[in-house]
């Protein structure tokens, strides 16, 4: 294990956002006096900006170090210590967490700037403006703890923290019941995943303790894991239908538990249902939490535990297949949505599926590459959609938009860049990262059915181009469906909003050049060791398989994916630009199919019927009416009181006759009884 260089500045990356959130919290909750607008802005936008600068300085130090020594750490204190075991509050910056930290603080800062413009009209009396920034800073803190924590327990702390902030921010406009419901839904579905994460931690810790290597520290885990890599567990007989039953590798079981957590946080089948509803939150929240950072935490976790997944092919295969199926499943739902944010939400689910596909194929650096580029273009798209929603006065239905290009030209331009980037337009960021993933699926020979995975990913690329361009055409081009009297009021947003769009637009276009593979580098004559810089940078932190592949193969794959995406784009143009009456005709012909897809395959309803309603009715009829009301309230509390009252009024009260001599007689009897006891005893 490489000795980690101490870097005391690391703690400030994490603590600055916490400090900002704490100051907001004290001002709001204890002093009950909001800070001034300027102070709020300086504090909230300043904290992530400074954190970004520190992260950047640390990155420079990492790059300057030789590849095998690229680890910085900062130990604050020992949190839980017992014997030789300790879980520290310590931060670890290696290439993997450095990339994530830069994305979180960088995109986070931009979105904070954007929020200034977006939340400006929030003049409710509960001081929404400052409360919003307080939550946003708290989120950044939790996310950075998750990313930088050097052990599983600290990571779990951040993991829960981001879940809490996500809940708070989805239900930010809680006076609308629906928003509060969506927040709760996100929280509860995430809890199911967190359960898997916890079980994973326990299993890993317990099985390592069996071989005297109890630890939760990532670097020590990587060292100790080979000791349990060959252990197996026997599944109970009722699980006999599972592949490989009845004996599984222990690491596979642990990996699946962790993946359940990742699937909850990163919205994969079967736990993806919360993310589309999370769009109830303000749009900057959707951009920051539900597109760029928090939902990629699951991918980050899988990559962080790559040493575990490298020795558990079963869990890796599950991840790859789940990712691929989620990718195409969500993409088909996105086609039929009419809410601008819902389309983007399903697109996020689909892109996260891509990332898991790559991670499952062992191409962890490709997954992280897509996390980075996705953070750029999906944040751009969400922020762009927020600008549209502001311009349309909180209308989100693209059926009521159209032709907005003339009114909001700048929003249109930046949004288009995001659309092209996600669709995989050649040499833009999405093109490079998506090709890496397709390539990794193509090359994952030891994965069962990797050709099918590749085909699914390719089809998803076509679908992505189709639904994203459909969204763009329906929103910005074609006939305007906006009511006439509203049209003069549509205009581009303020500079606070346009500036982050511009930065993210540039990043979406050129972000791919962080790590273009040598075969696809448009600049000729770059040596292979200098291209694909991101993967090379990450290589010292990740255990993924390095693949050797002919340039020609890689170029052919790229051409294929661009062709499929182009086909999707053409189809979108044909349906929504050139013959706009066609979609309605298709809809009437395929009414049943359309209703099925537009209603998200009725998955929510199915979950409702299978899980939610039985639980609710069990809680209502058994736990509430039976146990709480019946047993505890009626029997235990009121019952004992009723008994005492009945006994006292039915029996005991007759002893109180009011006749003094009666009492005296009892006293005499009692005395006699005691006296005779004493005498006889």
């Amino acid at each position, binding site marked *: 294990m490489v000795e980690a260089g101490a870097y005391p500045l690391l703690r400030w990356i994490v603590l600055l956002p916490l400090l900002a959130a704490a100051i907001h919290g004290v001002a709001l909750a204890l002093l009950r006096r909001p800070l001034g607008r300027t102070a709020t802005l300086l504090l909230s936008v300043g904290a992530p900006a400074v954190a970004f600068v520190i992260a950047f300085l640390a990155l420079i130090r990492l790059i300057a170090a030789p590849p095998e020594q690229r680890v910085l750490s900062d130990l604050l204190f020992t949190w839980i210590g017992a014997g030789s075991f300790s879980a520290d509050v310590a931060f670890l910056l290696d290439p993997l967490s450095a990339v994530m930290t830069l994305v979180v603080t960088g995109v986070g800062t931009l979105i904070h700037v954007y929020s200034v413009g977006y939340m400006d009209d929030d003049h409710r009396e509960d001081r929404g403006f400052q409360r919003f920034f307080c939550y946003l800073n708290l989120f950044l803190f939790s996310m950075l703890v998750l990313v930088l924590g050097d052990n599983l327990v600290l990571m779990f702390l951040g993991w829960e923290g981001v879940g809490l902030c996500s809940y708070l921010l989805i239900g930010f406009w809680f006076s609308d019941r629906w928003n509060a419901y969506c927040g709760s839904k996100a929280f509860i579905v995430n809890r199911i995943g967190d359960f898997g994460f916890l079980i994973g931690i326990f299993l890993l810790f317990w099985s390592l303790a069996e071989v005297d290597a109890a630890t939760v520290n990532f670097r020590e885990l990587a060292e100790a894991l080979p000791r349990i890599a060959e252990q197996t567990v026997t599944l109970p007989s009722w699980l006999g239908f599972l592949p490989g039953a009845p004996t599984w590798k222990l690491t596979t079981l642990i990996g699946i538990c962790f993946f359940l957590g990742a699937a909850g946080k990163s919205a994969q089948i079967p736990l993806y249902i919360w993310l589309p509803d999370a769009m109830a939150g303000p749009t900057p929240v959707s951009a920051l939490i539900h597109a760029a950072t928090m939902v990629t935490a699951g991918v980050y976790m899988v990559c962080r535990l790559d040493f575990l997944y490298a020795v558990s092919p079963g869990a890796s295969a599950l991840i790859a297949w789940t990712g691929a199926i989620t990718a195409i499943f969500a993409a088909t739902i996105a086609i039929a949505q009419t809410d601008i944010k819902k389309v983007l939400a399903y697109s996020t689910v689909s892109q996260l599926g891509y990332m898991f596909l790559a991670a499952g194929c062992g191409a962890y650096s490709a997954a992280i590459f897509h996390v980075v580029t996705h953070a750029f273009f999906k944040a751009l798209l969400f922020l762009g959609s927020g600008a549209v929603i502001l311009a349309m006065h909180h209308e989100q239905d693209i059926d009521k938009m159209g032709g907005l290009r003339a009114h909001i030209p700048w929003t249109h331009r930046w949004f288009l860049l995001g659309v092209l980037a996600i669709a995989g337009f050649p040499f833009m960021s999405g093109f490079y990262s998506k090709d890496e993933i397709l390539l990794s699926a193509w090359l994952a020979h030891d994965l069962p059915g990797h050709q099918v995975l590749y085909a699914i990913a390719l089809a998803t690329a076509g679908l992505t181009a189709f639904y994203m361009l459909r969204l763009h055409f329906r929103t910005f081009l074609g006939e305007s469906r906006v009511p006439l009297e509203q049209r003069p009021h549509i205009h581009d947003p303020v500079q606070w909003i346009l500036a982050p769009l511009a930065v993210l637009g540039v990043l979406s276009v050129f972000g791919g050049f962080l790590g273009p593979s040598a075969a696809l580098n448009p600049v000729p004559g770059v040596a292979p060791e200098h291209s694909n810089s991101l993967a090379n940078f990450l290589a010292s932190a990740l255990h993924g398989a390095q693949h050797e592949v002919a340039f020609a193969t890689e170029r052919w794959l790229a051409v294929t994916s661009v062709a499929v995406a182009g086909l999707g784009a053409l189809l979108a143009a044909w349906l929504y630009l050139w013959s706009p009456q066609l979609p309605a005709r298709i809809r009437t012909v395929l009414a049943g199919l359309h209703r099925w897809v537009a209603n998200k395959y009725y998955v929510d309803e199915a979950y409702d019927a299978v899980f939610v309603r039985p639980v609710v009715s069990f809680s209502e009829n058994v736990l509430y009416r039976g146990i709480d009301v019946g047993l505890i309230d009626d029997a235990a509390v009121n019952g004992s009181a009723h008994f005492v009252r009945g006994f006292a009024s039915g029996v005991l009260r007759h002893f109180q006759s*009011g006749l*003094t001599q009666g009492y005296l007689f009892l006293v*005499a009897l009692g005395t006699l009884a005691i006296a005779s006891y004493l005498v006889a005893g």
Partner: protein
Amino acid sequence: MVEKAVALSALLFVLGALGALTRRNLIVILMSIELMLNAVNLALVAFSRQWGDLAGHVFVLMVIVVAAAEVAVGLGIVLSLFRNRESVNVEDVSLLKW
């Protein structure tokens, strides 16, 4: 000697107890209680003499003092009862009941 004194004391005590339990007149009840107290005094004095221990006398003096105080309070209650109800019958004062 002491047997006779104790027997007398027991007799007086039982008489007093029966009087306190059966008579309806409050003044008679008070007198019966006095009788019980003095029965106890007699027993104490008798035992004191038997054992040559003066503690019994001390107790007797104590009981006499307390009995005097008790009679003062008891007669006060009887007096105010009679003023309010024109009766010293104990069965007429049974308001404190369910």
